[in-house]
């Protein structure tokens, strides 16, 4: 047995997984910059929701074509990973197809399943590439998808094409060797290492290309594909952190933590409740010395100006967003040409969060960079275009809530900056003075009954 490849493999594996883990730690650190939020309630419903929406992909199929293709890629990804497990064990032990002797016919069935899935994934991913780059699908043409986000989406798809092609070519070469051994053409110890195992419904159509090749050539083809495939997977794993593709992991916690209360129920601001209660309490002493315990706390700003003011679930939402644009495709403001795009709200939140993270990486702690999520990333024009209709929340297949971020930022604008559009200031003045958004006298509220 040769030890060098095993050592190299182990180093690559540890390096690849280790680097990814260190980046995920950074991501968690960034998410923790947000405010804590309690979502520890209703565990049963949360698990059920996660099983239905994340694991079961129930919201994906609301768009049947994209949904079905996505399910193929998703199932392919999950199931082909069983093969990756074998590849890792083979790599660490110097064995070849280590599961085969233990599983017998089941092994053949598994390999055949992987191959068929790999082919289906390949076809689906090619359709995805066509949808993104050739067909004029509105949600892939939006302004927030220009440049890096568009390239990012394509890189992911290219990666999957390459990985599937390598997997099938590897199997084809393996099959050609197995056939050579069976025919008595290859007799070396290295060749008999390729035990007769597996069933190859797809790669059997590739292996004729290798006819007449010597064992050495086939061996190099098989090994090259094997190495590129596993190294490719590790590169892909590490690419996730920089890409919109993190949803393959984060969709699960994200759906678990998603809001369970009715969509129309917006959060109650307890800091405001305290103040309003004080104001309405006839026994409250407006000149009383503030509670010394309360004075210790730094008064938190109301609403959100930056990512620090958002909660951790909202920041997790930002990392989870895979920029599919189903939210924006349903947004009434966006559909009628306004600047608001719920997808852009999520992308901006993540961009800002990562920019803050970079400052922390460099300086060791957060140092004000003179920017904020509000104005430098998200414009007030976008925020005021929202009708709070919840179409974006309903459309998201993985439980992201762009509306909650829009609302927090409106709250900041109004409560901290008194910066509502003028017509809304008039409306709010009316509500305050006469209990209706229009300038009618509250005493006239029952006039209709006698008209």
């Amino acid at each position, binding site marked *: 047995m040769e030890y060098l490849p095993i050592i190299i493999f182990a180093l690559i594996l540890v390096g690849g997984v280790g680097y990814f883990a260190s980046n995920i730690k950074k991501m968690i650190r960034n998410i923790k910059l947000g405010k804590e939020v309690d979502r520890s309630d209703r565990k049963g419903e949360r698990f059920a929701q996660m099983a239905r929406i994340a694991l079961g992909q129930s919201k994906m199929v609301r768009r049947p074509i994209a949904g079905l293709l996505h399910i193929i890629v998703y199932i392919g990804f999950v199931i082909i990973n069983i093969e990756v497990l074998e590849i890792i064990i083979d790599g660490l032990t110097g064995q070849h197809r280590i599961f085969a002797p233990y599983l017998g016919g089941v092994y053949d069935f598994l390999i055949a399943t992987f191959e068929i899935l790999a082919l289906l994934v390949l076809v689906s991913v090619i359709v995805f590439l066509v949808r993104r780059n050739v067909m004029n699908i509105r949600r892939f043409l939006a302004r927030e998808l220009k440049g890096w986000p568009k390239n990012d989406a394509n890189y992911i798809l290219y990666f999957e094409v390459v990985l599937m092609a390598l997997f099938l070519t590897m199997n084809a070469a393996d099959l050609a060797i197995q056939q050579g051994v069976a025919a008595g053409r290859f007799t070396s110890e290295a060749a008999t290492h390729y035990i007769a195992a597996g069933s190859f419904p797809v790669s059997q159509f590739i292996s004729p290309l290798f006819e007449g090749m010597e064992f050495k050539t086939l061996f190099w083809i098989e090994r090259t594909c094997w190495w590129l495939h596993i190294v490719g997977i590790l590169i892909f794993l590490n690419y996730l952190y920089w890409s919109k593709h993190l949803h393959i992991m984060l969709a699960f916690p994200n759906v678990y933590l998603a809001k369970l209360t009715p969509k*129309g*129920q917006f959060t109650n601001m307890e800091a405001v409740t305290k103040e309003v209660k004080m104001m309405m309490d006839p026994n409250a002493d407006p000149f009383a010395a503030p509670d010394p315990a309360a004075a210790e706390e730094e008064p938190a700003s109301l609403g959100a100006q930056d990512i620090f003011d958002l909660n951790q679930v909202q920041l997790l939402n930002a990392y989870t967003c895979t920029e599919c644009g189903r939210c924006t495709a349903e947004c009434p403001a966006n559909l009628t040409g306004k600047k608001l795009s719920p997808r852009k709200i999520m992308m901006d939140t993540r961009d800002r969060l990562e920019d803050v993270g970079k400052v922390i990486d460099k300086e060791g702690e957060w140092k004000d960079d003179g920017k904020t999520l509000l104005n430098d990333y998200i414009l007030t024009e976008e925020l005021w275009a929202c*009708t709070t209709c919840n179409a974006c929340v309903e459309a998201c297949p993985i439980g992201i809530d762009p509306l909650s971020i829009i609302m927090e930022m409106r709250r900041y604008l109004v409560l901290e900056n008194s910066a509502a559009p003028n*017509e809304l200031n008039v409306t709010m003045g009316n509500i305050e003075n006469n209990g209706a958004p229009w300038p009618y006298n509250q005493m006239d509220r029952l006039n209709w009954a006698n008209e």
Partner: protein
Amino acid sequence: MSNNLTVPTVAEFIAQGKQPEVLFWVGCSGSFDDRSKKITKAFVKLLNKAGVEFAVLGAEESCTGDPAKRAGNEFLFQMQAMMNIETLNGYEIKKIVTACPHCFNTLKNEYPELGGNYEVIHHTSFLKSLIADEKLTIEGGKFKGKKITYHDPCYLGRANEIYEAPRELIEKLDAALLEMKRSRRNGLCCGAGGAQMFKEPEEGKKDINIERTEEALETGADVIAAACPFCNTMMSDGIKAAEKEGQVEVLDIAEMIASAEDL
């Protein structure tokens, strides 16, 4: 319009030592907007006909605070909410019905955390139960065979997942219900929510109510059924813009039932 409506206030009930069966929360639009007042009256006629012992707050009612909350003014919202809760709790109100999905959502979902716990029912659900209890009967009559499309209000549909009650009522009118391309959970907003009703829209290619009205007109319906006074306003404006006034009507479901009953 006939003035034989019976609209007692809660104060009158209490003065007689009685408690109303249910409070009818009229809302700002239903109280002051000329178009919406017709909806309010139609609903009252139905309540009167069904013999429901309801009452209104009258001058003691004030804006729920929905537009303030959604505009980001939590302070004003909570001021409104707490004043209203004081009134409602003072009268020991347990059950509220309202024809406005915005009031409905706010009272039902956002008042409990501030100390206001009531059973809150939208008027379409309420009418449905009156019919189920045989307190109210609908004969199709006027709407028989008419083509009707129903616009889902965001704060009734997506916000609170009430999609079927209004549709069941329309079907009871023996009308042909035509669905728009975007309906139920995919229903397109009329453009009024989130305090948009009270401001000009941001710059864009089109107004949302125009987009939605066009979609409603595409169904070929004679009537656009609404279940929200603000949607009603937005869709009526859309009909005006499309110059379909007199051809296509925008009606609240309560109005449709009341006029089918020839009340």
